[in-house]
């Protein structure tokens, strides 16, 4: 049913650009793609102007692949590096004002629920650490306090990368960056604890070292947000430019940082756990039944 909106009507198909036809025929719509398929199918995002070696790019590519219903997903973001690639995905993207993402997403999600009561429309906020924890802090917190049913993904590169390398609330204490000439004076904000206190039902800290785990996490976050409540993923997506990480070492840095201070952590409430366990159980049974056929 839901795929009908993207499938061309017979007779019109040949009039559409080949890129669109490829997306429908060889894209991820209507099926679950695996990490091993990366580069072998028509992805939602293929081109981007991100810096060479950017870990955020890999992470966002995985997020797009993991979306359970991309044909009914709307991305919301704000200023920052991430939006350069998010805007180029085949998913509607609201590139809002500075730090307004979670407020916009609140109104959008509620509006979509009113207009499409029988169709899940997934709203996913993907924004940087500055966009969410500094300028977007109030909107972020209040969307959680209100238990708004959408996913927030923080692309945490621990710096304002897009504006040229200023410290953010997520920068580690002591780091010398622009606007922190003597080193950052205060600690990195503990956004994970804030998420817990504010009422997020599924909270994850993750680095892009294990692509399958990233995809499973994103899928869980989006599905849980549909039914249970706000979900939050905080992803280490290093800025190799501002932190001067040599391009070939970007993934090694991700492994090192993960081991040192950004290990995988997954928290979920009992409600969220009961829900996702049931969903994943059904999913496995369905996959088994398909395999038997």
């Amino acid at each position: 049913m839901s795929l009908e909106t993207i499938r061309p009507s017979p007779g019109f198909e040949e009039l559409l650009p080949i890129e669109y036809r490829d997306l429908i025929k060889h894209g991820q719509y209507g099926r679950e793609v695996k990490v091993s398929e990366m580069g072998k199918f028509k992805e939602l995002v293929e081109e981007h102007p991100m810096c060479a070696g950017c870990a955020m790019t890999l992470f966002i590519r995985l997020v797009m692949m993991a979306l359970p219903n991309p044909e009914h997903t709307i991305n919301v973001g704000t200023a920052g590096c991430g939006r350069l690639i998010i805007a180029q995905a085949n998913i509607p993207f609201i590139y809002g004002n500075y730090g307004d993402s979670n407020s916009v997403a609140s109104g959008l999600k509620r509006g979509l629920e009113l207009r499409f009561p029988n169709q899940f429309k997934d709203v996913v906020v993907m924004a940087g650490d500055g966009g969410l924890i500094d300028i977007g802090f109030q909107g972020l917190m209040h969307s959680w306090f209100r238990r708004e049913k959408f996913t927030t993904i923080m692309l945490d590169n621990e710096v304002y990368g897009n504006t040229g390398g200023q410290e953010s609330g997520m920068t580690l204490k002591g780091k010398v960056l622009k606007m922190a000439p003597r080193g950052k004076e205060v600690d990195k904000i503990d956004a994970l604890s804030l998420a817990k206190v504010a009422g997020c039902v599924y909270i994850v800290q993750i680095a892009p070292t294990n692509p399958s785990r990233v995809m499973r996490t994103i899928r869980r976050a989006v599905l849980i947000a549909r039914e249970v409540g706000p979900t939050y993923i905080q992803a280490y997506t290093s800025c190799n430019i501002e932190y001067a990480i040599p391009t070939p070492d970007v993934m090694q840095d991700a492994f090192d940082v993960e081991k040192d201070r950004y290990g995988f952590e997954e928290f979920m409430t009992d409600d969220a756990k009961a829900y996702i366990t049931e969903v994943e159980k059904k999913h496995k049974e369905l996959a088994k039944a398909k395999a038997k056929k």
Partner: protein
Amino acid sequence: MSQSTQIKADWVPKGDLQEVKDPEWLFHEAPRETEFITGSEAAREAIRRANVDIAISYPITPQSETMQQAGYLYDEGYIKDYYRGEEEIGVMSAIGGASRAGVRALTATAGPGLMRGMEAISSWPGARTPLVLMNMCRVINTPLAIQPDNIEISFLLNTGILHAHAENQQDFFDYTLAAFMVSEEVDVTLPAVVSVDGFFVTHARGQVSMFSQDYKLPPRDGWRNAVPSMDNENPPARISRDSPIQKSNFISYHMHASWQQEVFAAVERSAKYWRKYLGDLIEVINPDAEIFVVSSGACVSQAREAVRQEGEAGRKVGLIKIKTIRPWPKVEILAALKNAKKILVPEFNQAGWLHKELCSTLYGLITAEIIAGPRVYGGMSMPTEIILEWLAKARK
């Protein structure tokens, strides 16, 4: 949904019991009954009949009462969703998000709240978000004051937002309903602000003639917009890949310029729809006079009284009431003032934004002297006597 409604299994939203009617019929033919109510109550009655999907509120004097009333309307089932937002940036962002989902969205604010939400507000037209913001004008701090003063209107003039300025409680009812209809027209698809002077109108009673509350406007059609709703019901497309849309990291200059041109062209196109509901965009009294008073909002009422008293004294003074600030009724104003010799522009603000608008419209086209005042601000009221004094001076 409130607790009181959740516990009633057989609860029927009152909005579901209302009958959708043709808006032109509602405006011009439906039987009306008159009530003596405050401006805030007139706002409530307009919202009740406006078939609003979502209202997002945040308190600020003198607006709070209106959005409280919207809360009660939600509780009764006239509005489908409602919440108190975090503050005005959040509210104005969220209401923009709701409009982009394709539903009818409403909020209200006043002076400092408007200024706080201004980044989001000024981005609504470019996002092509039909919605209505009711604005109860108030002093902008500091020094802190909660008194009426409409300086904030000057900040909205060049945003691409439709803007009507209500004189009284009746206008507030009519303009608000019209604003929903106009903003959602396909060739408009823009947000609309309905401003009213705080306290003078919001907290004072006046006669308001209203059609039955059993009727409501047609719902917003989320499929009818100048740009698609953000609902992912259209074929997916990359929004910013190819030249000329994407230049460097940002939209190209030409694309941005043409987008702005289209927004302001849409403001002009909206005039025909405003006329459909409100008649002419200006009201003219004594069109053959040589001295005119030109005003908008509550100031018109004082000007009206001054014109009446001048008439009693045997002197004919003209009055022009400007109903919509945007679209700006340039042609109508010019036609009405072509034979004027002196023009007074009384205003409830220090900057004299209406005077400036008028000067830029009339410059080089008529020979009349356009007098900058009288003006009151900071919460002062404008006694009719001031206008009469200025008229006397102008005649000398």
